[in-house]
């Protein structure tokens, strides 16, 4: 068939056009290769990926090979699709809400490393997953249009409905799920009623963080659900203090990002070595200004000044991963019911 051969020809062209990176990677291969699955923004040119690989390769006489997918949730989907055949040695970029589900797949092995130097608010520790950074969810607001930001979740829920917020959808995004759990942790059984009240303040619910933040920076709403670390980016990279996070008196819900090694890792020793390296000062120093998250262990130098200006929650919420996995559907249904009422 002429069209199928055409298809082949042009797909080869496409392949050739895009494969240069892949080949560049394999050509320089050292004797051992550690394959790290991660989310895409980790390995963009401004992300921590390249620096991390360079630093680790100095200590291991190996080659770090990244495979990037859209985000943390996609990471788990990818693993389920690949099953036992997965080439991943390390999976880096799941968050605490996905831990129970990730363990249930049976693809992960206990890390068995000493993680004494790690301090995460809310005390998270696990025999399979090692934290490498964290951030608290926060309402980020535009100081030019909102002079009196809410000081608590209660104030957000009950405040002036004409001051809008853009939030993300818990059905499709991690920050959306974060806010759902935050409200749940604060309001418990009253969460449904709280959402019904907050509903009037919600300008719209976007499928992901990018859409929400895009609307926010276009000035469509004075508030958006994001992270306590978001202002750090604007201060460091754009030199503006316009966007700030609002400190909530009840406390903030935390997102802890973790990594784990797979059961079928081809290089288990190397994987273990990487997890240890990940909690060390070298790796941790790279994280703040590339991944825009907080380090979980000591860094080589003090953090940039902007990080000292960030909201430091006095109280941290974190629901156990098993509880989240068990109740997620029911809680989303509760959210849907409250948010869909007219």
């Amino acid at each position: 068939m002429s069209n199928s051969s055409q298809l082949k020809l042009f797909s080869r062209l496409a392949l050739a056009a895009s494969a240069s990176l892949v080949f560049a990677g394999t050509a320089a291969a050292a004797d051992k290769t550690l394959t790290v699955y991660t989310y895409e923004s980790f390995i963009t040119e401004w992300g921590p990926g390249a620096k991390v690989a360079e630093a680790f390769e100095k200590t291991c006489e190996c080659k770090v090979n990244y495979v990037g997918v859209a985000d943390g949730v996609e990471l788990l989907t990818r693993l389920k699709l690949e099953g036992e055949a997965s080439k991943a040695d390390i999976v880096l970029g799941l968050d605490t809400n996905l831990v129970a589900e990730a363990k249930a797949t049976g693809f992960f092995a206990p890390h068995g490393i000493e993680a004494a130097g790690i301090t995460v608010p809310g005390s998270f520790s696990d025999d399979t997953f090692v934290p490498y950074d964290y951030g608290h969810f926060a309402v980020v607001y535009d100081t030019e249009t909102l002079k009196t930001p809410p000081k608590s979740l209660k104030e957000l829920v009950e405040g002036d409905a004409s001051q809008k917020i853009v939030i993300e959808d818990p059905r499709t995004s991690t920050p959306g799920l974060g806010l759902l759990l935050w409200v749940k942790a604060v309001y418990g059984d009253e969460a449904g009623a709280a959402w019904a009240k907050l509903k009037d303040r919600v300008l719209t619910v976007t499928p992901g963080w990018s859409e929400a933040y895009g609307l926010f920076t276009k000035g469509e709403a004075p508030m958006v659900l994001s992270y306590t670390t978001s202002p750090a980016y604007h201060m460091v990279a754009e030199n503006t203090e316009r966007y700030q996070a609002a400190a909530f008196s009840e406390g903030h819900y935390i997102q802890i990002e973790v990594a784990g090694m797979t059961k079928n890792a081809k290089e288990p020793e190397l994987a273990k070595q990487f997890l240890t390296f990940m909690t060390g000062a070298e790796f941790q120093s790279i994280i703040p200004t590339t991944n825009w998250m907080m380090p979980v262990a000591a860094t080589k130098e003090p953090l940039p000044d902007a990080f000292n200006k960030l909201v430091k929650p006095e109280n941290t919420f974190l629901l156990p991963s098993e509880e989240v996995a068990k109740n997620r559907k029911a809680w989303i249904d509760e959210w849907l019911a409250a948010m869909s009422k007219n």
Partner: protein
Amino acid sequence: MFALRENRMTIVAGALCLGAFLLFVGLAIVALLAQTGGTDGSTLFDAYIWRVTRFTLLQATLSTLLSILFAMPVARALARRPRFFGRIWLLRLMALPLGLPVLVGALGLIEIWGRQGFLNSGLRLLGLQQPVSIYGLFGILLAHVFFNMPLAARLFLAGLERIPAEYWRSAANLGMPSHALFRFIEWPVLRGLMPGAAGLVFMLCATSFTLVLTLGGGPAASTIEVAIYQALRFDFDPPRAIALSGLQIAMTGILLLILRRLATEPQEGMTGGRTMRRFDGSTWAARLTDGAWIALALLFLGAPLVAIVVSGLEADLLKLVRDGNVHRALVTSAAIALASALASVTMAATMIRAAKTVVSPRQTGPAARGFAGAIGASTSLILLVPPVVLGAGWFLLLRPFGDVARFAPVIVVAINALMALPFVHRILAPAMATHAARSDRLTASLGIRGFHRLRWIDLPALRKPLLMALSFAMALSLGDLGAVALFGSQDMVTLPWLLYSRMGSYRTADAAGLALFLGLLCLIFTILGTADDNRRPEGRKA
């Protein structure tokens, strides 16, 4: 004898295309269903799904109605005014929204219609306190009309431009007034095209996802596509995702059937092929209405696009132009778009010819009608199979053959080609039917066959629709993110992927700049698509 053999070959080629197509989709679905795990046993059709289905139907029906109602007068005005300054650029502009990632389009619309947008700022200056709110059903409809009205208008315009010149001549001789022209000449053409155009727009709106959520104002505005995405992503429940796709297909399939009942078989008039010249529309009233519709369309489409350009110009374009990642993404996107479009057009043309040959008056049996029907249905309904389902299925199928990323380009091109089929089919099928009615007997009697026929008879006559189909298919695959997303990134970074990636890490200005590049690339494709419109007819007086 020869003609018979050629007919048989045409049919076999079409059958092969259809087979490959069905196999590609079927295998992916089987692979996903065979995947164990997932289903938590919850019932599929709970209250949530019904609510979502109802909303999907509501918004898609309204969006389609509005798009079609807007598109018809615009198409008529453009057909009546074959020559005015910038007409060709307006036509090119109309292919542009399709090639933009929906998020870019949505942000452009927000610059005009949003709370802080151009319109509301203007209204506030006038002292109005209650700004227009884009968030809610209004915003969804607005965005869907923005993306789909131009598509429908181009389809209608192409139909109106195929009306034989003799009709206009006779009508002018008879002194038919404008409303009679519409009733007897234009309306039958529009009505014939309506089911195809409306069906296509309906499917695009029914499967809309980012737009519906972003502009919908809350989860009350969710489509089935949201539930599919949720099932495959957060819950990893492939059987549920497939069942929901099935629901979507069944719902739309019924609607397409109803629409087809409304259609009338188009009457193909013979023509000497002289250049069309219309004699109507010279009154001041006609000029004014046409001018108003054209201006309205230009404003409605142009304003958000201008907003996108303005945001894009604020980016550090020099840095982006020098960025190696951007170069690679440009080349990758262009290559994928070209490959998908060629594959799609070849496949569509082969299948349309086969369907046409098989239902030719002498040999129409139930089997033949079924074959033609299968081609029609599958090239339409493919839009309802989420690319992410196809991608995930093929991921599973290719897993045993080593690194799946190696196959990514082939799969992505194949998926994009399939997704473009409905567009290509709607552009090519009416044009090919007209062409066949005008040339088949003559070429058969002259014994012109095979390559000669293709080279000297078919290609010259079908140049314009072929180019238009190619450019639409390219634009479509250019703006696509769905298929690429699954296969990981550093292997194959496309321009929309790069754009989303920048946007996802606070680099909004970069993203706006990339949107500008994407728009320019798309414009280049649409210039190619209208290349033939500029050619002066040879050897005839215009």
